[in-house]
């Protein structure tokens, strides 16, 4: 078997193992939370008999290990359980929320990743001159300002004063793609500003690091243009660190957008999670935690695999 294939399979297996470990942590974490699920459903005035019946019905009297495995087998079969508060199937209601979050994250990434890499390349090209300093200054400033503030400021100037986009990012299935994009334009802009600096700085640092190599001098002495040297000779050797930071930011776009979703009233995962945490809906919190963990682990696994594939020594062994 090709050594790269072995490495990739190893990564995937490790990722799955990590996911199982994360599921144990999530389950154990919600388990040690104070309070009693049956009590919180029935309220303070419930009779002891009613509580006992509900506990038996929910399987709360089983030992924790049995309950964990029951939960895990359900999850593997796509059954995330039912929400305690409204009795709805979690998988169904979360599915719509998740696809909304992924929609927002996708468009934010589609703008932010190419822009960050492009700005990183420009910063290297004009290293220590004004374009580099301007790019660094602006991106660092945007990452330093709290995202809700950027959100409200943009909302005030762009949506309220100029009247360009809407302040509320409520999307529904009946909208066309163009309408949806117009509605999410502001949250996408805010998210882009938030993740841009990190990726751009890493691109710049990774490429500058490679620019010290002897083969860059060889390329310069071939009389190639500065852009060709950076793009053709430096960039391919800087992919691994760049992909790593890109994936961490993509994961943030999926699991870290709670604040932005609340600011723009966007019906995504973040809102869903916050709602149910405040209502102590443990099965929903568990399911959300598991999905977030899967996204994190999955994206970092992709970063690892891309790094492996980007290494010519592994791709083309002797």
């Amino acid at each position, binding site marked *: 078997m090709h050594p790269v294939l072995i490495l990739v399979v190893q990564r995937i297996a490790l990722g799955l193992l990590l996911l199982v470990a994360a599921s144990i942590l999530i389950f154990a974490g919600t388990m040690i939370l104070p309070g009693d699920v049956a009590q919180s459903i029935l309220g303070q005035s419930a009779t002891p008999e009613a509580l006992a019946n509900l506990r038996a019905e929910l399987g709360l009297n089983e030992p924790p290990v049995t309950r964990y495995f029951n939960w895990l087998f359900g999850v593997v079969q796509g059954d995330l359980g039912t929400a305690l508060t409204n009795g709805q199937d979690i998988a169904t209601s979360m599915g719509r929320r998740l696809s909304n979050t992924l929609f927002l994250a996708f468009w934010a990434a589609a703008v932010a990743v190419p822009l960050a890499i492009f700005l990183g390349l420009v910063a290297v090209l004009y290293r220590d001159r004004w374009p580099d300093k301007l790019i660094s200054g602006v991106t660092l400033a945007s990452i330093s300002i709290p995202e809700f503030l950027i959100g409200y400021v943009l909302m005030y100037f762009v949506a309220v004063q100029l009247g360009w986009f809407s302040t509320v990012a409520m999307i529904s299935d009946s909208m066309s793609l163009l309408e949806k994009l117009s509605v999410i334009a502001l949250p996408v802009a805010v998210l882009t500003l938030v993740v841009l600096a990190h990726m751009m700085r890493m691109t710049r640092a990774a490429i500058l690091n490679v620019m010290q*190599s*002897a*083969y860059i*001098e*060889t*390329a*310069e*002495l*071939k*009389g*190639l*243009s500065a852009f*060709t040297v950076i793009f*053709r*000779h430096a960039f*391919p*050797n800087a992919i691994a660190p760049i992909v790593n930071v890109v994936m961490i930011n993509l994961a943030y776009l999926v699991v870290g957008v709670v604040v932005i979703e609340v600011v723009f009233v966007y019906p995504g995962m973040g809102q869903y999670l916050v709602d149910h945490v405040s209502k102590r809906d443990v099965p929903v919190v568990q399911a959300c935690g598991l999905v977030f963990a899967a996204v994190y682990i999955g994206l970092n696994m992709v970063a690892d695999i891309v790094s492996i594939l*980007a290494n*010519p*020594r592994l791709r*083309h062994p*002797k």
Partner: protein
Amino acid sequence: MADPLLKVTDLKIEATAYPPGEPPQDITIVEDISFALEKGRVLGLIGESGAGKSTIGLSAMAYGRGGVRITGGEVLVNGRDILKLGVSGLKRLRGAEVTYVAQSAAAAFNPARKIMEQVTEATLAHGRTSKRKAAARAVSLFAKLGLPDPENFGNRYPHQVSGGQLQRAMTALALCPEPELVIFDEPTTALDVTTQIDVLAAIKDAIRDTGVAALYITHDLAVVAQVSDEIMVLRDGHRIEYGAADQIINDPQEDYTRALVSVRSIDHEEKQPTDDPVMQASNVTARYKGTKFDVLHDISVALDAGQTLAVVGESGSGKSTLARVITGLLPPSRGQISFAGRRLSADLAGRSREDLRELQMIYQMADVAMNPRQTVGTIIGRPLEFYFGHRGAEKRRRVIELLDKIELGAGYIDRYPAELSGGQKQRVCIARALAAEPRLIICDEVTSALDPLVADGILKLLLELQKIENVAYLFITHDLATVRAIADSIAVMYQGRVVRYGTKSQVLSPPFDDYTDLLLSSVPEMKLGWLEEVIAHRKMESAGH
């Protein structure tokens, strides 16, 4: 008379130095350099590190490495001053009219791109020919340079070919755009001596066949003598001597040139082995963890007190692995090491502090073998503290004694490694090893990174110390001149085996086995025409077989 291809007049090159705690200052690194090079001729630039050879070479492409600036003089290529060219003019010059062969091809090739792509890149970027024709030219250059399977060689990635092959591919890279001038910057320095001779011959043939002119930069006078028509000797950025190759080699006018020609002045009388060796390796076989093949096969060597055993071989022959086994860093799978009559534990963890003290090491790279944040006094004082419990004034007194032994003196005690030259750093490492009062010091390529004259000084010091301290050296090297200078006995290693072992006079006298013969005949000699003689001799021999 037509303009020469390259004419350099009164070249001055400066850089900015940043001494710690002081404002930056401009320093002159090359001054008053003038020379001319006609079409098809080869000029050798020779000198030690810091002489400004590479800097002068790169000035022919108007290129300054790091913060280096060309601040004065003229560099005319075909009559026009390239120092006055703008960005686009320089682009047209570099990689087209003038090309460059770097010292370490392994670092100079981009690991992420195929060799063919890199070899033809400059040719295509300058629009010199079509992609197909450039590839055809690259293949014919691969063939001319003696690369295996020239048709498919370019489809490989740099890490898939050997160092010697990559160095030839670098030459193909430089010749592919059909330049008028090639700058060879130490093109064979990183190679084993047996590989160097083939690459050298290939480069020489390529220069002759293509009629290209060349600047050949090296610190090895014997090498430059083989390829150059003229030689310029440089020191500290100044010209020492400039003349025909024949005159420089056979009739040097300056003392410095004479020192370079006659380096290795050491006269060392060989001591005879006794029956009571201080260190004996018996039937040592070893492999690295997780690998499936032995890197050492059945090695048996012995070393007497106060004597030197030189272990010679090319890279990958297992020399340094043997040192790792003796020091306990790599426990052997079979065989054992005895030391001063007792059997040493195979594993480092099983050795006593006394075992550790009696066996010290000195490494090739002195600057990475020392903590840059410790002073010389701390570095040398550490073994005194660790093995003998010396502290305070007693420790300082011993450190100064050791500094005197290595000819540096008490003034160096509070300096940091960064403030020392390469040779001084290696001396500090020697003092650190001596501080433990060892019976055996393993010297792993200790002079390989040093200039010849500095290396000579280090070898003399080691021999001197051996007489006084009666310490034995296991001297690992690929350099046969060093071996001749200091060894009492020699073990020649090849592919993890000792192929020849005995006293120096036995090993270096015929009849030779094939490998030792190859090794000995590959060492460049300081005479013109040596390369042709050896190549002709080898062709005759292989025809005779």
